[in-house]
């Protein structure tokens, strides 16, 4: 049996009573996945990322959504938010907190939308993430029966972040999950949506998520993807964004966890004045592999994009950054800036970076660049000259490198968590978190 057949066989475990709009989609996804098979390194888009660990794995589907209470408390973000929790891809009503949603805000599990036969949801799902995008998108489409649906009526500004927490469990049979996230933002609506991937240490599951974000005129979505899964977890994600006139999409793609993490982020700027900001960070160690493929399509004149990805790589970690900006013919007066800077903390760490601009218009302002380097030795020396020992000096400079992206993060809970994680991973006993707190206290005083 081929690998695709083996994966698709698990479909028989699925419920048989899908509404017809779901069943049809499932079949299309399965057929496409079977035809494409898993990508190999001969595929340009997968040149640096070997997915055999996934293709050769044996993943069941989870059958219950129980999760250890103490672990849950330790993993979840301490944030006042509307929370929707999936455990190994299954909705946990018990861990979720969706009470008190304001008028015009719908946040529900995909299974609830399917049970209620919400055809509007069916109409939106798959509009951006076609089964041809990648074999993983097709695979997700074949399986997806759980996820988060977020829909905002025009003009609604959501008072609290919408927090989707996806947990992965350890022990027993490895499982796969194919969650689906749909964010439909009505005209001039505004919300912050967090996708947080976390779980038990030593979880070794496969998560294959697809996110679709539709922004109507003037809508603003702040989208956080915080990847903190176990260093043994496998993760493939694609995020597809469609922006109308004057909308704004701010992406914060923060990668700390996972053994293999691949994220595709694609935005179509389809209306004048639409603006996308991509902020990315990957901090990897051991044998972690993180691959970010980003694409911005400037399809309309006077659209703007600004991308800044930073990578810190230690040990034998491997990072991939492929950032493409495409400017369509006649998409005049656009601005597109892209930068990727990487810091190698070990000489066995590896980064493959490729920023790419493809421009078919002439009246544009664009720049792109990639730098990879070590810490500035003069700066290390200057800090040592004040009595700071070398590991601490390197830690401070690494935190400073990461800080440029973290300064953009508006949710303090996330910024602090990432800074603390970075500080905790640095080869140093020193309490950088304490420094950060002191600095904050002085600022407030």
């Amino acid at each position, binding site marked *: 049996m081929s690998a695709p057949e083996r994966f698709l066989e698990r479909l028989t475990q699925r419920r048989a009573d899908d509404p017809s709009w779901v069943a049809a989609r499932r079949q299309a996804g399965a057929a496409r996945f079977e035809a494409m098979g898993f990508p190999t390194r001969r595929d340009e888009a997968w040149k640096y990322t070997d997915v055999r660990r996934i293709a050769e794995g044996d993943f069941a589907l989870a059958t219950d959504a129980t999760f250890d209470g103490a672990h849950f408390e330790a993993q979840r973000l301490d944030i006042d938010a509307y929370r929707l929790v999936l455990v190994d891809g299954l909705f946990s009503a018990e861990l979720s907190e969706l009470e008190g949603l304001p008028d015009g805000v719908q946040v529900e599990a995909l299974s609830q939308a399917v049970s209620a036969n919400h055809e509007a949801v069916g109409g939106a799902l798959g509009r951006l993430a076609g089964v041809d995008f990648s074999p993983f998108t097709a695979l997700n489409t074949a399986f997806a029966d759980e996820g988060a649906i977020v829909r905002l009526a025009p003009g609604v500004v959501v008072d609290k972040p919408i927090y989707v927490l996806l947990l992965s469990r350890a022990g027993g049979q490895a499982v796969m999950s194919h969650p689906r996230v749909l964010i439909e933002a009505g005209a001039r609506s505004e919300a912050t949506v967090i996708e947080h991937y976390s779980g038990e240490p030593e979880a070794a599951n496969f998560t294959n998520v697809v996110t679709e974000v539709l922004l109507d005129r003037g809508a603003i979505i702040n989208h956080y993807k915080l990847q903190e899964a176990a260093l043994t977890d496998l993760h493939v994600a694609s995020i597809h964004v469609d922006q109308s006139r004057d909308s704004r999409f701010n992406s914060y793609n923060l990668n700390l966890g996972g053994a293999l993490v691949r994220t595709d982020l694609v935005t179509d700027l389809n209306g004048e004045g639409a603006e996308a900001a991509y902020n990315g960070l990957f901090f990897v160690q051991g044998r972690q592999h993180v691959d970010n493929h980003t694409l911005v399509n400037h399809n309309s004149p006077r659209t703007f994009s600004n991308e800044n990805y930073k990578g810190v790589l230690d040990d034998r970690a491997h990072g991939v950054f492929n950032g493409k900006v495409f400017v369509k013919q006649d998409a005049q007066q656009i601005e597109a800036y892209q930068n990727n800077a990487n810091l190698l903390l070990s000489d066995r760490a590896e980064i493959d970076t490729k920023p790419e601009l493809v421009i078919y218009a002439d009246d544009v302002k664009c720049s792109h660049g990639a730098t990879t380097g070590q810490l*500035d030795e*003069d*700066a290390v*020396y*200057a*800090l*040592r*000259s*004040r*009595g*700071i*020992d*070398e590991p*601490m000096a390197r830690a*401070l*400079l690494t*935190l*400073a*490198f990461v*800080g*440029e992206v973290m300064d953009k993060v508006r949710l303090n809970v996330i910024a602090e968590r990432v800074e603390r994680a970075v500080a905790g991973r640095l080869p140093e006993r*020193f*309490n950088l978190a*304490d*420094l950060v*707190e*002191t*600095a904050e*206290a*002085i*600022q407030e*005083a």
Partner: protein
Amino acid sequence: MLEVKDLHVTVEDKAILKGLNLTINAGEIHAIMGPNGAGKSTLSAVIAGKDGYEVTQGTILFEGQDVLEMEIEERARAGLLLGFQYPIEIPGVKNIYLLKAALNAQRAARGEGEIPAPEFMKLVREKSAEMKLDPSFLQRAVNEGFSGGEKKRNEILQMLVLQPKLAMLDEIDSGLDIDAMKVVASGVNSLRSADRAILLVTHYQRLLNHIEPDRVHVLVDGRIVKSGDKELALELEARGYDWVLEESAA
């Protein structure tokens, strides 16, 4: 406190210091003057522990310890600090991080615990006010986008927080207007105490109008050729260095 004996230093096989002797006692301010290229910066850099200098002969003792056996950070923690002529920018590292990490490193070396946050905050706010630096400077990256004068005041701020036993200041007055010079000088004067010492490296006398030295040394071609009290600085200002050279050659 500091005892430099027969110090010979080469840089890339070129002899720069050629048998230099200098003794500084606690409570004293010494000024090293001399023409460009004489080796003044080299002397302070070698005492502080900067890389790239080879000591081929001689000793440097600081409170009886052999400085040449110590790493630069150990020297700083022991109380030997050099204020740089050209302080570098450290993008992203907040001033406050540097100050706290440095102060705690020094305390740890003395076997003391970390400074409590409120005490630290009070200290740095006070000292920045003394240096006429707005508290917002504490949140800014070290020297990033600072003017020349701000960089120099920031060097002194570090001294005021870290309270070195021996503060060495290399051309701290270069590029300062008169108001900035007064702020810097009053900062340096406030470091003065019976159990501390200061070594000023300068090429002009004008700084010494604001910081009165106990001893003035003339460094020429790698050696101290003449020492005296503050009157010597005035004489150098009036007559230049040539007469000292002639006198020492005679």
